[in-house]
C-alpha cells in the first residue's frame, strides 16, 4: 500500500496552559481532496500551520510525502503549496512581480517562472491590472494571487486555509475546477472552509476538529453512519447534509440551537 501523503501521529500544540491541538492522529491518502473542519478556535489553523512549518509542534510526529518534517523540512516545502490564513503576500509588489519572486524562491528557472506567471495571471483574471500593487488589490484578488503563488511550482500537496472566502462566484467556479483537476492528477488537497456546501461538493474525505481534538474522520458516508449509530431516537429519513452532520457532531456543546441563542438578544431590533 502507498504511504499516505500526510501522516500525523499524536500531534499536540500548547500555548502556555492552553492546548490548541490535542494529540491528533490522521492519515490523508495521496490524491485525496480532504476537508478539515471545525468551529472557530477549534485548532484548524494551528494544525495547518504545524503541517506547513509555520509553527513548531509541542509534541508529535508529522510525515508528508513519506518524509519526516522534523528532518526534511526543506525537501517537504519544495513539494507543498500553501495559502495561509494571512496570505503571505508582499504588498508592495505587482502581481506579476510577486509570482516571479515566488517562482524563483522555489528554484524555478526564469523562463519557466515567466511562462507560468503569465498563464496563472490569465487564469486568475489578474492580468488586466499589471501595474497595480498587491496592497491595492481587493481581498478576493489577493486570495486569487495567493492561490496562484501556491501552485506555481506544481506542488504535490496543497494546503488551503479558507480559499474561497471573498472570492466571487465566477472565480470560485474556476478555482474549484482547477483544484479538482489537480487531485485527478494525483495532488493532495488539504482544505479548511466554513462554507460546508463547498466542502461537501469537493471533498471525498472530511475530518472534524473540536476543542483541539479530532472528533470525526472519514468519508461523508462513514460520518453519516457514525452519527446514525450514535442516535438513540428515530433515524433521519433523508441523507444528512454535511452541515447537519457538523452541527450534530460539534453543535451540541454550545448554548442551545441558533434560534435559542438569538432569543437571548432581546434588545436587538
Amino acid at each position, binding site marked *: 500500500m502507498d504511504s499516505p501523503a500526510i501522516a500525523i501521529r499524536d500531534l499536540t500544540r500548547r500555548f502556555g496552559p492552553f492546548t490548541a491541538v490535542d494529540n491528533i492522529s490522521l492519515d490523508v491518502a495521496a490524491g485525496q481532496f480532504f476537508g478539515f473542519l471545525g468551529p472557530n478556535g477549534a485548532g484548524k489553523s494551528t494544525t495547518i500551520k504545524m503541517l*506547513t*512549518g*509555520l*509553527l*513548531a509542534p509541542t509534541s508529535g510526529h508529522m510525515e508528508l510525502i513519506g518524509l519526516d518534517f522534523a528532518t526534511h523540512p*526543506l*525537501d517537504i*516545502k*519544495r513539494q507543498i503549496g*500553501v495559502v*495561509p490564513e*494571512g*496570505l*503571505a*503576500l*508582499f*504588498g*508592495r*509588489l*505587482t502581481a*506579476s*512581480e510577486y509570482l*516571479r*519572486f*515566488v517562482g*524563483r*524562491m*522555489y*528554484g524555478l*528557472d*526564469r523562463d519557466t*517562472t*515567466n511562462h507560468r506567471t*503569465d498563464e496563472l495571471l490569465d487564469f486568475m483574471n489578474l*492580468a*488586466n*491590472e*499589471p*501595474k*497595480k*500593487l498587491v*496592497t*491595492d488589490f481587493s481581498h478576493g484578488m489577493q486570495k486569487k494571487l495567493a492561490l496562484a*503563488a501556491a501552485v506555481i511550482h506544481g506542488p504535490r500537496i496543497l494546503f488551503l486555509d479558507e480559499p474561497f472566502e471573498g472570492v466571487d462566484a465566477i472565480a470560485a467556479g474556476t478555482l474549484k475546477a482547477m483544484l479538482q483537476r489537480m487531485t485527478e492528477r494525483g495532488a493532495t488537497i488539504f482544505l479548511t472552509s466554513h462554507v460546508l456546501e463547498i466542502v461537501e461538493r469537493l471533498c471525498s474525505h472530511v475530518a472534524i476538529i473540536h476543542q483541539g481534538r479530532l472528533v470525526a474522520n472519514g468519508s461523508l458516508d462513514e460520518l453519516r453512519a457514525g452519527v446514525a449509530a450514535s442516535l438513540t431516537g428515530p433515524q433521519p429519513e433523508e441523507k444528512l447534509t454535511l452541515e447537519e452532520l457538523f452541527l450534530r457532531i460539534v453543535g451540541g456543546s454550545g448554548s442551545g440551537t441558533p434560534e435559542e441563542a438569538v432569543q437571548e438578544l432581546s434588545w436587538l*431590533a
Partner: protein
Amino acid sequence: MAGLAPPPAQKSLHGSLFSPLARGQYAALAWVQTRIFVNSLRTKRGGFELGARIVAFLVFGAVATGPSVGLGFGAYFAAANNHVAGISILLWILFLMWQGFAALAPALAGQNPELTHLLRYPVSFGSWITLYLVYGLAAPSTLIGLFWTTAIGIGIAVARPQQLPWIALTLALFAFFNLLLSRMILAWIERWLAQRRTREIVTAIFLFLGLGLQALNPAFQSRNGLLHRLSHQKAAHIPSRVWTIQSLFPPGLVTSSLMPATHAPEPGRSQSLSLLGLYTLGAGGLLALRLRSESRGENFSEAPRVSSASAGRKVRRRPVLDFSGPIAAVFEKDLRYLMRSGPMLYNLAAPLVMVVVFGGAFRGGQLSRIRGEYALPVGLAWAFLGLVRLICNNLGMEGDGIQFYFLSPTPMRTVILSKNFFHLALFLLEAGLISTLIVFRFGLPAPSIVAATLAWLLFAIPANFAAGNLLSILMPYRVNVVRIRREPGGLGNGLSSMLTQLAILAAGALVLAPCAFLGHTWLAAPIFLVLAAISLFVYLRVLDNVDRMVQSHQESLTLEIMKTG
C-alpha cells in the same frame, strides 16, 4: 416587533471636540494605549522596550538640558541688556532646530500616528486632528523644543518679571505654532513621498536645497564671509534689510512681541502677536487640509493609475537583475520595495543631505587641515547611519510576506545573506557619494588615512551585518513603508543598534587616534585588518546559525512583523 429607536449617539457625532462621545473616545483610546503598554510588559521584549524608553528619555533629556541652560542664560543676558538681536538669534536657533529635527531626523519626529484604524468609528474630524497633535506632543523634537522654549521664557522672565504673563502668552503661541508647523511639514512630506511623481519633485527640491546651502557655505565660512563679519560687528549693525525680513517671520515676530521697548511702539506687541496667530492659523489650516483627506479614508499607499492604453496589455518584463535564483530574487524584491517607499528613501537620503548641508562646517578655522584629513573616515562612518534601520531590522518591511519565507524551501540563511548583499550595495553607493563629495571639498586625504579607513570598513561592515542579523531576528518590528514614523516596538532595537554603531565607531577611534598621535597612522590599517578577520569570523558564525535562530524565534518573528497598528 418593536420599531427602531433613534440612535442616541447621532446628535453628538457632530458635536464639539469635547462632546460626551469625543470624551468617551479619548478615554477609550487612552485606556487601550495603557492596556497595550501594560500587556507589553508581560514579555521580556516589552520589559526591554520599557528599559530602552527610559534610557532614550535620559539621553534626550541630557541632549535637551545642555543647550537649554545656554539658551536660558543667553535669553536672560540679552533681555537684561536690551539686546534685541540676541533674543532674535536665540529664537531662530530654537525655530530651526525644532523644525530641522522634525523634518530631517525621523527618529526624533516621533510617532506619526496611523489613525486609519479609527475610520470605522464615529470619530469627528476635530477629534482626529486633536489626536494627531497629541501624538505629536510626545515626539522627542517637540519635547526638546518645549524644553528650550521654557528655558528661553524663564531667562526673559527673570530679567523682566513684570512682563511674565505676556512672555508666557507669546512663547506659548510660538510653541503651538512650532508644533503645528512641524506636524504639518511631516504630514505633507509623507503624502508627497507616497506618490511617484511628487516623490521625484520632493527629491529634486531636497537636492536643490542641499546643493544650494552647500554653495552658500563658503559665503558663511570664508574669512570675508557673512558669519565672520557678523562676529566682528555688533548685532545692532545687522543690515536693516535683513532685520526687516527676519522680523516678518515667526521668530522675528516673537522678538518684536517680547522686546517692544526699543524696536516697536507699544501697539506693535499686539500686532506682532496677531501676525504670529495668523501664521499659526496658516500652519493649522494646511495641516487640517492634509488630514481632512486622510480622515476621509484616503488610500495612503502608492496606487499608480493604469492608463486605458496599458490596461489589458502585457507588461514587457525587464528584470532589475538579469540572473535567477533566490538570492537575486530577494535582492530584486528588496530593491523594488525600497524604490516604492518614499519614507525609506528619505531615511537613506537624510544623512546624505546632512553631509551636503553641513559639510562646509568642516572648513575654515585653525583646525581646518586636521578636520579635512579626517573628513573621509567621519563621512564613511556617517554613511552607515542611513542604513542602520535597514541593517538591524532587515525583515521589518516584509509585513505579511514574512510567512512566505517560512513556507518556501529557501533557507533563511539565503534570505538573510541576500539582504546583506543588498544593504552592502546601498552602503557602497552611499559611501561612494559621500567620498566623492569629501574629495571634491577637501581634496585627497593622505594614503595612510585612506588605507586605515578602508581597513576599518572591512571590520565595520561584517560587524554591522553580524549585529544587524542578530537584532533582526531577536528584536524585529514591523516597518510601515508608507509612513514616516518611529515604529511601535522599535525603540529597543533602535537603542541596541545605536549602541552597536557607537561600539564600532569607538573601536575605530581607539585604534586610529593613538596611531595618529604617535605619528604612525599607517599602523592603524594592519590593526583594523586583524579586527576585520575577527568580525568576518563572527559574521559567518551568525550567518550559519540563522536558520536555527529563526526556527526558535519563528512565532515571535511572525507576530511582530505581521502585527498591524
